[in-house]
């Protein structure tokens, strides 16, 4: 088992990547650190999403439903004087509960209907936030009184550490026997059932795990930014970015999501001088990778790693 890990190029890549990332605050400006902090939280969103799509075979078009639940629960509670750690726990719990309420009926329907249900969930959440503007801040957004830290490097390291731990846990689940059963359930649910596996139970568990990390990351992001708004956390377009990040990084790789998220945010920033055109260029690049390199960015990297 240990030898398998040591000979895996992915392991070394990840280790080198993390080491480089952790010393980055010594070199780069606070502005770039801020960008990467957001990118790391988006990386967690993408990794959590990949557990559902890449392993359980369910396309969740509404990752922002889970993220938004976590973010707004934490933000609103903090506004009522609850401490940050409790808010984070509550945010994660709200995402899991919301995820369960959504997934229990939604996993009963087959094929594209699951995806549709998740989109509708996002739209409903978005509407509720606008309707209950007094509590949620509505379209203007919610301002939270507390932030974790005002130091860019501290925030950066928290995000990096959180991402590393989340990635490790999600990856461990994915390669464990449970991950194997999940993949079987995603690929051929009839056969998985005939082998004695409760497909619904496994998919539901995957949904809960995905919801937990999405909600927690959403809550942490609120306490980094100091605000929560529909446009940055809940809107369907945000969800699309999470999905593109995961697919771009590499489906069924979990850690690929981080690469995808960093790429999207970095590219968006680098191309900012292009103005409105930058979105187009980033989208075109993402489309090209998805069409021509289905294994994603991580697929390219590990193949090179194996050759070396």
């Amino acid at each position, binding site marked *: 088992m240990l030898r398998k890990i040591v000979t895996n190029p992915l392991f070394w890549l990840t280790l080198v990547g993390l080491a480089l990332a952790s010393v980055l605050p010594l070199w780069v400006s606070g502005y770039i650190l801020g960008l990467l902090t957001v990118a790391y939280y988006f990386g967690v969103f993408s990794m959590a999403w990949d557990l559902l799509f890449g392993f359980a075979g369910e396309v969740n078009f509404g990752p922002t439903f889970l993220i938004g639940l976590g973010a707004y629960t934490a933000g609103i509670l903090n506004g009522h004087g609850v401490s940050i750690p409790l808010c984070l726990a509550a945010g994660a719990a709200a995402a899991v509960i919301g995820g369960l309420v959504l997934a229990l009926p939604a996993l009963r329907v087959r094929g594209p209907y699951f995806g549709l249900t998740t989109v509708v969930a996002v739209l409903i959440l978005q509407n509720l936030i606008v309707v209950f503007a007094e509590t949620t801040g509505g379209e203007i957004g919610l301002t939270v009184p507390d932030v974790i830290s005002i130091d860019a490097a501290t925030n950066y390291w928290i995000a990096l550490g959180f991402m590393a731990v989340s990635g490790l846990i999600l990856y461990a689940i994915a390669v464990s*026997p*449970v991950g*194997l059963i999940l993949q079987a359930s995603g690929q051929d649910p009839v056969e998985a059932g*005939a*082998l004695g*596996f409760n*497909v619904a139970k496994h998919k539901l568990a995957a949904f809960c795990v995905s919801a937990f990390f999405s909600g927690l990351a959403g809550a942490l992001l609120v306490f980094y930014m100091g605000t929560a708004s529909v446009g940055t956390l809940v809107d369907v377009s945000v969800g699309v970015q999470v999905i593109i990040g995961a697919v771009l990084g590499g489906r069924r790789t979990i850690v690929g999501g981080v690469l995808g998220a960093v790429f999207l945010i970095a590219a968006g920033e680098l191309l900012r001088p292009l103005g409105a055109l930058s979105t187009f260029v980033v989208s075109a690049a993402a489309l090209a990778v998805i069409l021509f390199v289905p294994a994603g960015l991580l697929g390219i990297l590990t193949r090179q790693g194996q050759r070396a």
Partner: protein
Amino acid sequence: MTAAVLQMPSQTPLASPARPLLEVEGLAKRYGGLVAVKSIGFSVKPGEILGLIGPNGSGKSTVMKLIMGLERPNAGSVRLDGTEIAGWPSHRVARAGIGIVFQHSRPLHRQTVLENIKLALLPDNLLRLFADPGVETRARAIAERVGLGAVTERRPSTLPFADLRRMELAKAIARDPKVVLVDEPFAGLTSGEVADFSQLIWGFRDEGKAVLLVDHNVKSVAALVDRVFAMYLGERVAEGSAAEVMRNETVRRVYLGGSIETAARPQSAFSGEPLLKIENLDVLYGKAQALRGVGLHVHEGEFVSVVGLNGAGKTTLFNAISGLVAHSGSIAFAGEPLSRRTPASIARGGIVQVPESRELFGEMSVRENLDLGGQHLPKAESARQLAWLFELFPILKSRGGQMARTLSGGEQQMLTIARALMMKPRLLILDEPTLGLAPVILEQLSKALERLRQTTPITVLLGEQNVTFALPHADRVYVLEHARIVWEGSPDRFAAEAGTGYL
């Protein structure tokens, strides 16, 4: 049996026959108006192999699904070692001790063969993040037993077809079930592989498991089974030893038909170049060869039947003609090769296929389905065609406003054929139109085809496993067996020369 007792004198002879491991009673299943399974009952004892036999659409696969919990029965009981399991979800049925070897499955492509086998050894437990160390050893032992020992580290996609079937068998062995269901054990295998698989299935019997083999004809499993239970149209038609069932009058009638009146016109009546000419047609589905060197021709105005059992390659042949599957070899229609044309352009060119699965627009009315077929015709012509079709299938006229999915199976089949005829095809391809239809409907359909043949100059290519239906209208018959054409001739010679394989 006696020899075994003599060799082991310590073993006491069984005082009473062993209690059945699997008991099925009064099992019934309806899909909408279609009764797929009607009050089926049988039992399998430990160490016994029962063959569940029936032609396409007889309900045998449904029975298997009902036992496995993949479908819920409307009535009846399934008892496993005395425990009632009818209506349980499949994962509970599997844990209670029933295993299934699927004919087709999607293995985990990114994992090795060994990991695929390990999967079957895992408990249904969310908290088990590390597998037992024993799992690895057991998976290897099972791989050896089924003959996969040399390829455990390979990915399933690199394996030949037979090894994929071995892997499915390995997964069933890994669950160590009391009852094993095997779906079409020998489909797509060579004779050497058939011998290997027979040994493995006998292995189940020697371990005292009850085995249920599901297959479409008696002959293919006769050497393997202890008993045979034959089904037709959801009902039991015969039960007994393989030889008894093959001698059974009803079984013979179901598979071969009684005395069939044929009305073949000699081939010389159709002059000139054939309308459809196929030479050296090969089709591969991944590892499995679905068609091998098939040659066939149909003249303008001729009615040609292709007879073959389930899995022989009929649908593949038709899909190749319609341009739906990749193939090598040549297919020419009216003298022009079809190889570079899209399915849509082939259909517009006059080849219209009525698929086995019917593919009606269920949420549209009968009229709308027909109008869709006549979309490209001028209005007046479309109306004329419709009037003619209502004459051919009067029942469709009275059902004009009804939604297509609410029709009975036979009416749906007529609507599918009528919709195809709205396109005014030069060549009509009918793929198993009799699938799942009751005898009385068959007769109506048969009469409609007869009228069609007599009143129009249409050219028909019919694929059937129901010989009784395929022969009466045919001018010429081809027999397709294991991906090859093995016989060609006039229908009156069929029973004598090619009939024995169809029991």
